[in-house]
C-alpha cells in the first residue's frame, strides 16, 4: 500500500463554533404553543371559548334587557327579534339570562380548576414523592375528606352562608381536589422510580425542584386532561345543586340552573332548555377539545 504523504493533509479551517445550535432555540412552552396551533380542533375549542367568554362579558351589557326584570304579560315568548332566545316563566329575557349563566358557570368552573391545580397537584405530588409515612398519613386524610359526601358539605355551607357563588366554590374547594391529588400521586409513583429522577436526585436537586421541574411536567398531560374534566364537573356540581334547589341565589342564574329549570318545562317550552343546553355543551366540548390538544402539546415525550 502506498504511503500517504504528510503533505496531503492540511489542518481544517477552524470554524467559529462547531457546537452552535443552528435551529432557533425554543423553550418548552414555545414549542408547546407551536404544536397546539397545529391542532385545528384544539384551536377551534380555544377560539369558541374565547368567543363565549367575550359574549358572556359583553352580551348582557349591550342588551336593552336585564336578567331580573319580570314582565308578566310576556311569559314564555318564543324567540323573536325583541327577545332573541325568547322569554322565561317570568317574562325575563332568556338571551341575557343565558349569557349571565355562562358568566357564572365559567367562573365557578375556572375557580374550581384553579383550586384543583394548586391544592390537588401539590398534595398528590408531595404525597407521592415522599412516600412512606408521609404518604400514608396524607392518604388517610385524603380518604376522610373524600368520603364525606360533597353534597352534605355544600348544603351545610349554603345553609350557613346563604346561597351564592362563594358558598358553592368554598364547598367545592374543601373536597373537589381530591381526585386530582389521587391521580397525580398514582402517576408520580410510577415516575419517581425512573432514571431521570434518580439522576436529578443524585445531582442534589431539592424535592421541590424534582417535583415541580421533573415530575410535574411529566404528568402534565394527565393533569390537564383532569382539569378539563374538573371544569365541567364543577359546573355540573353547581347544576346539581340547582336541581336540588340550593345553588345560586335567585333571580341570578347559572347555566346549570337554567338547564334544570328548562328540563322541567321541556315538553312544552323547549326553547328554555335548548339554548342553555347548547351553550353548556359548547363550553364542555371546547374544554375537552382544548384539553386533548394541550395534552398532546405539553407531553415532553412527544416533543420533536
Amino acid at each position, binding site marked *: 500500500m502506498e504511503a500517504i504523504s504528510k503533505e496531503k493533509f492540511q489542518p481544517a479551517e477552524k470554524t467559529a463554533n462547531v457546537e452552535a445550535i443552528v435551529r432557533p432555540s425554543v423553550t418548552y412552552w414555545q414549542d408547546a404553543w407551536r404544536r397546539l396551533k397545529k391542532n385545528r380542533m384544539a384551536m377551534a375549542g380555544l377560539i369558541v371559548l374565547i368567543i363565549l367568554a367575550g359574549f358572556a362579558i359583553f352580551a348582557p351589557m349591550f342588551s336593552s334587557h336585564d336578567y*331580573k*326584570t*319580570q314582565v*308578566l304579560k310576556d*311569559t314564555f315568548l318564543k324567540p323573536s327579534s325583541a327577545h332573541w332566545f325568547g322569554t322565561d*316563566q*317570568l*317574562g325575563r329575557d332568556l338571551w341575557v339570562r343565558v349569557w349571565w349563566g355562562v358568566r357564572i358557570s365559567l367562573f365557578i368552573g375556572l375557580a374550581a380548576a384553579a383550586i384543583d391545580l394548586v391544592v390537588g397537584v401539590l398534595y398528590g405530588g408531595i404525597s407521592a414523592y415522599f412516600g412512606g409515612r408521609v404518604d400514608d398519613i396524607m392518604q388517610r386524610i385524603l380518604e376522610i375528606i373524600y368520603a364525606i359526601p360533597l353534597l352534605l358539605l355544600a*348544603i351545610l355551607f*349554603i*345553609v350557613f352562608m*346563604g*346561597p351564592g357563588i362563594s358558598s358553592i366554590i368554598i364547598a367545592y374547594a374543601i373536597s373537589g381536589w381530591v381526585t386530582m391529588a389521587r391521580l397525580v400521586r398514582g402517576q408520580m409513583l410510577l415516575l419517581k422510580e425512573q432514571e431521570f429522577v434518580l439522576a436529578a436526585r443524585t445531582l442534589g436537586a431539592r424535592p421541590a425542584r424534582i417535583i415541580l421541574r421533573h415530575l410535574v411536567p411529566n404528568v402534565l398531560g394527565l393533569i390537564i386532561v383532569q382539569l378539563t374534566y374538573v371544569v365541567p364537573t364543577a359546573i355540573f356540581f353547581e347544576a346539581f345543586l340547582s336541581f*336540588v*334547589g*340550593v345553588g345560586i*341565589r*335567585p*333571580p341570578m342564574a347559572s347555566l346549570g340552573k337554567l338547564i334544570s329549570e328548562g328540563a*322541567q*318545562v*321541556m*315538553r*312544552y*317550552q323547549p326553547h328554555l332548555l335548548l339554548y342553555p343546553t347548547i351553550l353548556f355543551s359548547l363550553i364542555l366540548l371546547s374544554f375537552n377539545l382544548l384539553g386533548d390538544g394541550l395534552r398532546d402539546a405539553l407531553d415532553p415525550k412527544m416533543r420533536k
Partner: protein
Amino acid sequence: MKFKKFTSTALVLTLAGSLLAACSGNNSGSNASESAGNSSAPASGSASAKPTGPQELVINYRTDPPALDVSIAESSSSFTILGAISEGLYRLDKDLQPQPALAAELPQISPDGLTYTVKLRDGITWADGTPVTAQDFVYSFRRTLDPATKATYAFMVAWIKGGEAVMTAKTPEDVKKAQEALGAKALDEKTLEIKLERPVAFFTSTLAFLNFYPQKQEFVDKWGNEKSGADADKVLGAGPFVLKTWDHGQKLVLEKNPKYWDAANVKLDKVTLNVVKDNATGLNLYDTGAADYTVLDGTQYMQLKDNKELVRKKELVTGYVNFQHTKVPAFKNVKIRQAYTAAIDRQGLVDTVLQGNTAAVGYTPSGNLDGNGQEFRKVAGDLEQPFDAAKAKELLAQGLAEAGLKEMPELTIIGDDNGTGPKVLEFLAGQWEQNLGVKVKTSPMPHANRLELELNKNYEIVSTLWGADYNDPMTWLDMYLTGGSFNTQDWSSAEYDKLVKGAQSDTNLENRAKSLVEAEKILMNEAAVSPLYYRTLNIMVKPKVKGLIQPPYGVEFELKWTSIEE
C-alpha cells in the same frame, strides 16, 4: 285553659308536601271536617252503575308513606292509604258529610255538646276476622296520647277530656293513671263514650279522621311501637281494602277486603300505587297507560287545562307571606305592610309561577265553610289589599314618613328551596323591586330550616303555607291571636283577640260566624298577613275511573266508592 293548648294545636303546616314532593305539585297535608267536596267524577257510590272491565286502578303516588300506623302517621300520604285499609266511626262521603262507618249511626250528643255516645255497627271485623270492639277505640286513643308512642300528630285526640294529661305525663305510672282517667270509655263491647274537654262543633266529622281509628291491641303489641305499621304484614285495618304488598319507595298494592262490612259496595279489586316523584315522568306513565291518575305541575296544567281528563281539586291551603315586626321595626307600621301587600300582583303569580292555583283575596281560602253552613269567602268577600303599584308606592311613602324612616333597608325573604318555593321568592323579590322600589334578597333553604327560622321568629319576611285541619274559619283565624305560636310576626290587636276569643266560646253559630268575618277584616285591613294564593291540585284521571272522591283536605283521594267503567 291556655290558648295554646287547644287552639293553636289545630293547625297543620302542610309539611309533607313541601317536604317530600319536590316538584311543583304538592301533597295536601291538611285535614279536617265538612265542606263542599270535590269529586273527580260522578260518584257511583249508589251502586246503581254497573262496573265493567277489570276493577284495577293504577295511581302515581308522589310520596312513599313514612309509616302506616294509626298513631304515628302524620302526613297526607299515610292518611290516604290508612283511609283505604282502615276506617273510623264515620267516613266522609263526596259531600264531606260523615256517614256511619264502623258506627251504626250518628252519635248521640249531650246538650252541653261535651259527651258523644256512639253505637258500633254489628258484625264489624278486623281484616283478620276478629271483631272490632269499643275497647279497640279506647286503646287507640290511649296509645296515641302515650308519650312513649312518640306520636307527633296527637293533638286532635287531646281534645278528649284528660287527653293532655296523658301527653304530658312524666312517668309510665303517671301515664297509666292518666290513661285510665281519659274521657273515652267502652260502656260495653258495642258502645263507646267520648267526653270532650270543651265543645267542638265539628267533632262528628273529626271522628272520621285517622287519629280516631280503632287499633287492635293484640296486633300492635305483637310488633310494638318500633315496628307497627312498618310493612304490609304489620298493618291491620277494618277498612275496604287490605295492604297486600308494600315495596318501600317503589309501590303499594291494595286488594279488596272481603271481610269488610260494606264489601258489597266496594268495586275495586286491586289498587296499585307506584311511587313516582317526578311530575314529568308521572305524565309520561299516564300517557302510555301505565297509570290512571297523575298529578300535574304548573306548566303541564297550562298545556292540559282544556283536557277532559283534567280534574281540579281545590284544597283548603293558603300560601302567604309574613313580615316580622321585631326584626324589622318598619313592619310595625300598617301602611308599610299594606304597601308590601299591594305591590304584589297575585293574579300574575298564579298566571306565571303557580299556574292553576287561585289568587288570594283574604286569608281563609275559598271553599272553607264559615261554621254556619255558608262558604266563608262568599260571606266575607274580598278583603285583601288589591294589587295597585301606584297606591303601594304612595302607601310606602306615607308609611316611611310616619315611621320616621328615609327608606326601607334591604330585606331577605326566606322560603322552601324545593318545588315552586324558590320561584315564588324570585317572583316576590321582583315585584317589590319593580313595583315598590325596595330591595329584597331571596334565600331559599331546606324545609326544616325554613320552619325552624320561622317558628323562632328569626326572619324578616317568610313565604310559607298552611292547610286547614278542620273546615271552620277558626282553623285559620285563631293562629293570629296575640302570643299564638304561629303568630310569628308579633302582630297584635286587642280587638281581633276579643272577636276570635269571643267566637271560640260562642254557641250562637250565626254570631260566631259574624265575629270571625269581622276578625278577618281586621287581619286584612291591617295587612297583618299577606295571603298570596289558594292551592289547587291539578290531576289527570282516566275517564274510566268513576267515583274517585278528592276531598279538599286530609287525604289525597278516597277509594272506597271508586269503580272502573270501560
